[in-house]
């Protein structure tokens, strides 16, 4: 008669140590937070063959923002604090054409919203010095994007009773049509002081 052999149990007490080691490795080498940031679209490179188009923009349609190398802000020829920029931009973007100083507007028929006055020709022109701090540049960009976002959100709340982010694609497109984004960045120049 054969004697049944007992299978020896493998000692698993080191398993915990091994998995702890792995755990610590992953804790150290990985990061939790996903990156966040301001998403922007750069304009395509100019084709050198096509000549420069000089388009005349009426002064009332343009909001000129200059940032110098001391991080000072000038909007349409007047010194301004960054904190005021958002309100200024909101008034500028949401112009209905009645104020002589604010951009022209034309009636546009938009699905869901009907015919609304849209400042289609408005342009926010941002120009900075080569010596401007990146932090200030982001601050200005952020204020401008915030101005658009707040206007769109307000429009969305009044038209659909929902914030802009919860609308479907068609509704979002309609809102975007009511407040089209037009931020143009000029090629940077050196005004002196900065390098």
């Amino acid at each position, binding site marked *: 008669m054969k004697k049944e052999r007992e299978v020896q149990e493998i000692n698993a007490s080191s398993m915990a140590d091994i998995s702890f080691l792995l755990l610590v490795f992953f804790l150290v080498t990985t990061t*939790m937070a996903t990156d966040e940031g*301001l998403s922007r679209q750069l304009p395509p490179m100019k084709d050198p063959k096509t000549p420069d188009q000089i388009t005349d923009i009426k002064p009332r349609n343009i909001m000129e923002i200059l940032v110098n190398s001391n991080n000072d802000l000038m909007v349409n020829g007047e010194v301004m604090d960054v904190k005021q920029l958002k309100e200024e931009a909101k008034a500028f973007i949401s112009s209905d054409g009645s104020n002589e100083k604010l951009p022209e507007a034309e009636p546009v028929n938009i699905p869901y919203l009907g015919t609304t006055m849209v400042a289609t020709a408005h342009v926010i022109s941002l120009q900075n010095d080569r010596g401007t701090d990146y932090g200030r540049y982001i601050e200005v960009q952020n204020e401008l*994007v915030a101005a658009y976002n707040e206007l769109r959100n307000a429009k969305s709340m009044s038209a659909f009773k929902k914030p802009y982010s919860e609308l479907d694609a068609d509704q979002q497109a309609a809102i975007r049509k009511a407040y089209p984004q037009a931020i143009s960045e000029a090629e940077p120049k050196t005004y002196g002081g900065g390098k």
Partner: protein
Amino acid sequence: MATFRKKGGRKLKAISTASLPDIVFMLLFFFMSTTHMKENTYKVTIGLPQATELTKLEKKSLVRYVYVGEPNAQNRMYGTDSRIQLDDDIVSDPEKVSSYIASQNASMKEEERGLMIVSLKADEHTKMGIISDVKQALRKANALKINYTAKKKVN
């Protein structure tokens, strides 16, 4: 009759640790799935600017990183001026960004080409000159989607 208990007869039973590996493995898998690898070691110091209107970068495979900042203590040989870091190298010529993006584009999956998002991580005290050079290089390489990495502003 009185009964006597022997002293030291009762021993505390050791707590079974057999489930410990399972618990730790669970933790391990949790961290493996919720986190992701650090993309690069920084050779430049980056203090991110703050902003409120942030969007998240979702698709990791589409994102390429460009870092701009002052070389950190281990890389003092590059000087103290702001430099551009691509992958693990510090480059001095902003034009290199174009060729880097072009080579990255070539190594991407065919269906993802042209969808590349460039995440620009720059120190907030960097001067705009070098940032505009990078932006010009990106435009030249036709990588037009850009994300300026920033921290959530706390009020």
